[in-house]
């Protein structure tokens, strides 16, 4: 049962991601990103992280993809052809793909990976305890980062007056 679910969610995730890449229409690409995210959320549930799956759907599907769709429809994005590959790009992409495949194969052959999951599922209390003890400083820093991002967005979206000597 777990295997079947893993295969289904893997198919959703990778199929959605592939369609994001090849789809010519930006709106459709955003929709397939949503499919891919649902697959990833399912994988999180399989990995005993139901809270993370919930947060992922809430933040990504609720906020990020909605923002993407909003901006796509705000701007005039016509469907465009894919970029033609030049020779250096092909060589670099092939080399990078080969290195990635080699890394995965080496990992599969030589690394001693932990086989079974020993721990119980983390509860909400565990997350809270970690966030407010071990990771208290990162939480504060991320809060400041969000503040800085908010101010940055306000400054970026302000309309500045053109300089006097502009044509």
């Amino acid at each position, binding site marked *: 049962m777990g*295997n079947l679910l893993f295969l289904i969610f893997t198919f959703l995730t990778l199929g959605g991601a592939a369609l994001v890449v090849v789809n010519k229409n930006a709106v459709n690409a955003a929709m397939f990103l949503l499919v891919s995210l649902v697959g990833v959320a399912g994988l999180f549930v399989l990995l005993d992280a139901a809270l993370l799956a919930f947060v992922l759907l809430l933040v990504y599907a609720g906020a990020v993809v909605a923002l993407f769709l909003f901006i796509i429809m705000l701007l005039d994005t016509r469907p465009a052809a894919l970029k033609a590959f030049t020779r250096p790009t092909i060589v670099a992409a092939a080399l990078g793909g080969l290195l990635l495949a080699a890394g995965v194969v080496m990992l599969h052959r030589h690394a001693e990976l932990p086989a079974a999951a020993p721990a119980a599922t983390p509860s909400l209390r565990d997350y809270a305890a970690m966030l407010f003890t071990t990771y208290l400083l990162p939480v504060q820093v991320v809060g400041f980062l969000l503040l800085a991002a908010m101010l940055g967005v306000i400054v970026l979206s302000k309309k500045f007056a053109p300089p006097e000597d502009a044509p």
Partner: protein
Amino acid sequence: MTIGLDHYLLLSAVLFALGFLGVLLRKNTLVIYMCLELMLIASTVALVAFSHFNGTFDGNVFVFFILTIAAAEVAVGLAIIVALFRQRHTVQVEELNQLKH
């Protein structure tokens, strides 16, 4: 066959590669941004899988931070794209070559 850590890591690697392929292949800045998001998601899958198979929660807590950073990044990036569109009236990367000349 039981699903182990290496399957999740393979999935994460393929997802990351797909995202990177999208960044190389696409011309629309918005879609390039979506592919960046895919790469971030791939890293979170690897973190959660490691955390699950090692019996610790640290990876799961890291995913919280990654989600926060991704949300902030999307907000700032889309604001930059809108500001760019206001200036140049395009979001296609091959037409945004002002720095080249």
